[in-house]
């Protein structure tokens, strides 16, 4: 794994037309730390995640990796440093599992075929799916697909990983395996931002939990502080509904 970096968002604003989705978000994740972002649907969590790797460009504010603003970097180069995992897995259905991983390695990292395959095999092994290398994504369960998606992102040796409700589309019995993999990554020192509805995961794994509502972080802190002694009434109400 390549060295992790710290991540900071400063006063990030973003509007879609007249709809203000992010209204000044601040978030800090220490190097190797894990931040979980929780909050009701439509609060801007997924949008926030996309401003980190600039799939969406913030209208205002700043995104910093190791204290340095990345908003003027080449976005493609920036995204090569940041892995992202989606709710719907988004594997490329027209290629094998292994090819899903080697394609970016060969085309972006410019690895030779042998080296790319070796790294893909190693990552598949790490997520417990070495036997599925030749299968098409459609022949895998949702949980397996998500683990492949994580392997694909990790193979690029990112410095930060973003998870956008990575387990929300999974059948309940498949959630555990994916969460275990994410927890393992966290303990290995990957800097992670995890948008999630899994409060158990947030409580156990996160260093920081940020509660978002209506485009701002209303409250952030250590899991114990958020889950046991929440101050903001909105957060307390939210927790009473989901816990």
């Amino acid at each position: 794994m390549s060295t992790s970096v710290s991540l900071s968002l400063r006063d990030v604003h973003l509007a879609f037309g007249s709809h203000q989705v992010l209204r000044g978000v601040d978030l800090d994740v220490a190097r190797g730390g894990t931040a979980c972002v929780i909050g009701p649907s439509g609060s801007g969590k997924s949008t926030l995640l996309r401003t980190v790797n600039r799939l969406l460009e913030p209208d205002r504010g700043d995104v910093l990796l190791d204290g340095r603003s990345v908003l003027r970097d080449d976005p493609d180069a920036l995204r090569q440093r940041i892995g992202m995992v989606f709710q719907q897995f988004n594997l490329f259905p027209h290629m094998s599992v292994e090819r899903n991983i080697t394609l970016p390695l060969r085309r972006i990292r410019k690895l030779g075929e042998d080296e790319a395959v070796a790294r893909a095999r190693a990552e598949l092994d790490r997520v417990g799916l070495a036997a599925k290398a030749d299968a098409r994504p459609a022949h895998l369960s949702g949980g397996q697909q998500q683990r492949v998606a994580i392997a694909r992102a990790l193979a690029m040796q990112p410095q930060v990983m973003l998870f956008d409700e990575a387990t929300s589309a999974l059948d309940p019995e498949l959630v555990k395996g994916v969460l275990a993999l994410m927890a393992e990554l966290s303990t290995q020192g990957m800097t992670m931002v995890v948008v999630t509805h899994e409060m158990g995961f947030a409580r156990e794994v996160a260093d920081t939990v940020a509660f978002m509502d209506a485009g701002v972080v209303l409250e952030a802190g250590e899991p114990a502080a958020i889950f046991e002694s929440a101050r903001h009434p909105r957060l307390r109400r939210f927790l009473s509904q989901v816990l």
Partner: protein
Amino acid sequence: MDPLRTLWETFFDWESMREALPEMLTVGLPNTLILAVTAALLGSALGIVLAVAGISRTRWLRWPARVYTDVFRGLPAAATILLIGVGLAPLGMQVWGPNPYPLGILALSLIASAYLGEIFRSGIQSVEATQLEAARALGFSWREAMRRVIIPQGIRRILPAWVNQLIALIKDSSLVYFLGLLASQRELFRIGQDYAANTGNQSALLLAGLCYLVLTVPLTHVVNWIDQRLRHGRPATGPAGDDPDDLDLALPGAAGGNQR
């Protein structure tokens, strides 16, 4: 003479057919295939350019693609072939001499590209937006994401429509006879027509028609077969090595929009 018998002999005179058959197979069939397949390939290359221009975020690419498509889809094929074949003849004269064959191919390609461009565009647009997002998140440029991820998926979905276009081209290739081809360049229809004109008997033309059916009817079944396969998935997964996952497709340089 018995009118029924006259009718029969007009269309089913075996002697006339036997006479025309060798030339039909050795000259007409190859030429028809060359015209149709070359035009399908050139039309596909240009069609992809049109498709990508058509969904570009740059108005100056979208508009010309739109106008081109409307014009070449809107004109009768015969008019386009005549306009290009005759209109560009002086130019062609300087490039390859007095030979209307390349102009015939060009005209067929231009017509096909207008249809194929629309087919490719719908195929590309049918690929979920999340696929583009996933590719961009990995660090692919817009251009590379289109080339490696979106277009290969789109193309699979439009294969039936593509084969339909090939069928149309096989039929439309008969129209290049307007351009006055050399004896060795004549395609199926022209050879049938020449025999019919010389003998006053339509049997050779009917034979040409049968040749077209031998080409087109199996292709329509190929379309149905591909369609079925796409609908119900392939029976088994092949080995990873032979996945044509990253077809080396040429993309227009100008179309590499800077979507972020």
